């Protein structure tokens, strides 16, 4: 190592550096960052992803939460206490999600956590909730095991999002009906190569075959998550000549895929089932949205076709100048449930709210029948709007949605749980 003598640093510069160092060391441990608010307010902490490739998850979750919080606060808050949100970025790293969640509770004095993390981050926050016993609402993780697996179960954690297995059951039964009607026997799949893509596709195929047993999967493609070029995948599918294609690509991946597959006129050669199509993140970004893609509803303001849902979608658009996402309704639901449970318990105490949440049924713009329910046995959301339809290139994008049947969902879900050894 060379040790050439550099011209000395001035005393002033040194002092400035030392000063900066002292300040940065002192701040986190010094006086609490946010001035301790009066007991009148209640703080809710929210770790989420606000940077990187999926920052939209965090921003659209935050927007929806703030939209609902305004309403709740205007109506008097949680049992008379005004809600103050503390929202922080976890960068999509589970260890950061855990750290941020602990910090929110231990240092910022948050009494409730809205966990707007995706996949592994949600499990990390779940462990924090288990450790600290704080009331926690998972709003974005759709991994079935989070609530279905009894090993994960803790009395203070709830999920207000859809669940993978529900989607697969409805998607599978819808596709089977179409397959029978149109004689679609040869299928291909094309999904992102990570847990969500693999699991969702496997479950979808299981239910598809259950409802239409003579179906055959003749080609599988697993592009990488965030892959920029799909030419290879598209040509592989075209060469296999399937009659139908299933995909659970989402967001930017789905839109790039469609744009590139359009060049090969893929959509005129087979029926395409893309579960994540009917979300404004994809619908509004695709250059030429092909007609007739089958999609599950993620969030569209026209399904459920109720004035309440349309009003909610428009209010969101008016405030943020963009349409809500699937994540938005899931987060809004968390706040709606919180407010209702607090009213029922007449308290802002986490334990009492948790007690009130179990089995709570509320009116909701996102409900299949105008209500959603927090199922008591596994503390997850049921009864939300879930259905499939086909696209058209302009608004309302998916004009007719065929609703999924919750009775069938419950039956098959119970069976699925048994097969997994959960019950």
């Amino acid at each position, binding site marked *: *190592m060379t*040790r050439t*003598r*550099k011209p*000395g*640093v001035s005393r002033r510069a*040194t002092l400035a550096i030392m000063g900066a160092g002292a300040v*940065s*060391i002192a*701040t*986190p*441990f010094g006086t609490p*960052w946010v001035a301790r608010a009066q007991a009148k307010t209640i703080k809710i902490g929210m770790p989420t992803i*606000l*940077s990187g490739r999926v920052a939209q998850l965090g921003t659209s979750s935050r927007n929806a939460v703030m939209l609902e919080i305004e309403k709740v606060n205007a109506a008097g808050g949680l049992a008379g206490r005004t809600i103050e949100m503390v929202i*922080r*970025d976890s*960068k999509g*790293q*589970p*260890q*950061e999600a*855990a*750290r*941020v969640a*602990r*910090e929110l509770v*231990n*240092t910022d004095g948050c009494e409730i956590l809205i966990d707007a993390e995706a*996949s*592994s981050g949600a*499990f*990390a926050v*779940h*462990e924090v909730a*288990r*450790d600290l016993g704080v009331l926690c609402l998972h709003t974005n993780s759709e*991994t079935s*095991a989070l609530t279905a*697996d009894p*090993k*994960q179960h803790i009395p203070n954690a709830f999920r207000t999002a859809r669940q993978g297995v529900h989607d697969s059951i409805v998607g599978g039964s819808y596709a089977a009906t179409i397959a029978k009607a149109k004689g679609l026997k040869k299928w291909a799949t094309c999904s992102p190569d*990570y*847990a969500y893509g*693999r699991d969702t596709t496997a479950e979808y195929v299981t239910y598809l075959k259950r409802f239409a047993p003579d179906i055959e999967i003749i080609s599988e493609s697993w592009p990488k998550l965030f892959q920029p070029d799909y030419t290879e995948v598209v040509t592989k599918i075209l060469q296999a000549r399937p009659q139908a294609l299933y995909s659970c690509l989402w967001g930017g991946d789905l839109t790039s895929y469609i744009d590139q597959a359009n060049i090969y006129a893929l959509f005129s050669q087979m029926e395409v089932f893309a579960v994540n199509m009917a979300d404004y993140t994809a619908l509004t970004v695709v250059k030429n949205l092909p007609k007739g893609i089958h999609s599950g509803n993620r969030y569209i303001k026209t399904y459920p076709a109720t004035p309440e849902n349309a009003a909610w979608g428009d209010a969101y658009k008016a405030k943020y100048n963009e349409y809500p996402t699937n994540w938005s309704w899931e987060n809004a639901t968390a706040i709606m449930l919180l407010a209702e449970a607090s009213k029922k318990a007449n308290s802002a105490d986490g334990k009492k709210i948790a007690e009130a949440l179990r089995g709570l049924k509320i009116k909701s713009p996102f409900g299949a029948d105008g209500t959603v329910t927090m199922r008591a046995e596994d503390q997850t959301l049921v009864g939300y709007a879930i259905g499939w339809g086909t696209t058209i290139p302009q608004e309302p994008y998916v004009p007719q949605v065929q609703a999924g049947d919750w009775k069938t969902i419950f039956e098959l879900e119970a069976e699925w749980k048994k097969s997994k050894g959960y019950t």
Partner: protein
Amino acid sequence: MTELQAEQGAQALEVSHEAKTRRNRDALIALAVFVLLALLPAVFSSKLLLDFVIRCAAYGLFATSLNLLVGYTGLISFGHGMFFGLGAYGFGLMMQKTGVPVPVAFVATLAITFVVALVIGAICVRLKEIYFAFVTLAFQMLIHSTILSWVSLTGGDQGLRGGIPRPPFLGIDLSNQLHLYVASCALLVIGLFLMHRIAQSPFGYTLRMIRDNATRASFIGIDVWRAKLTIFVLAALFASTGGIIMALFVSGAYPEFAYWTISGEGIFINMLGGVTTFLGPMVGTVLLLILNDTVTRLTDYHGLVLGIVILFFAIGLRKGLMDFVVEWYAQRRNGDGERR
């Protein structure tokens, strides 16, 4: 290692009296630091502080062990994070699947790391500079991919779920945050003490010689490959200990722990703190974590802020903070000497 150390120790000209007092002094300092850290919760009741120190212990052990390779031996490893991940997964899986007592799982995890590091090291340390860097990176990605695809064992990209059970042992209950804090401090201090002993031993000086001129080292009869492999394995053990602390902190293990970004963070910490002093990486760790935590609180654009800080250190100072402080101190002392 001991054999090698003993061999070279015998050859060393300076006889051990001075070394012995230095060792005693180090041990005393380590003990004092541990007592100080252990007393901290009695003075400050902040749970944030405890979390912070636990994370410092995890990253500090990891970064300091990386410096044994980068700073002392000149082996720029881009894949050191794999041992961090290995420690976290090894320990987490052992506790979840077998239910053995914590110390047994701890030792067993280190044993696994030892074997894996021995195999990977044997292949890698023959290579020079950029080739070494890239092959270590390749192995890291291999381990990362294995974690992702071996879903039945590791839970794939959802990580090890369901929490890590930690039955109390010898009156220590690691699910109690205070106990975990004290245990982490102990592991950190012992780890740093051992690494310092390694760095100051004749073996440590052999490493410096290899760094500066490997050909010369081999000409005077040093088995360069063996020395490099020894330090590679030792560094892996300390990194793995860091991973174990992290797994205990988050009560889980996630593929991100074995991803290249962790290795990158390690290198960044070393740049921040400086590689020419033993405590540089530890200072870098504290600095980075403080920066990360405060910047995340203030803005969503933390990437931008951290980037500017890296630029400041890389282009502005051209060295780590500790290098800068040490040089500044030396310069000042010389300056005073001249004046007198």
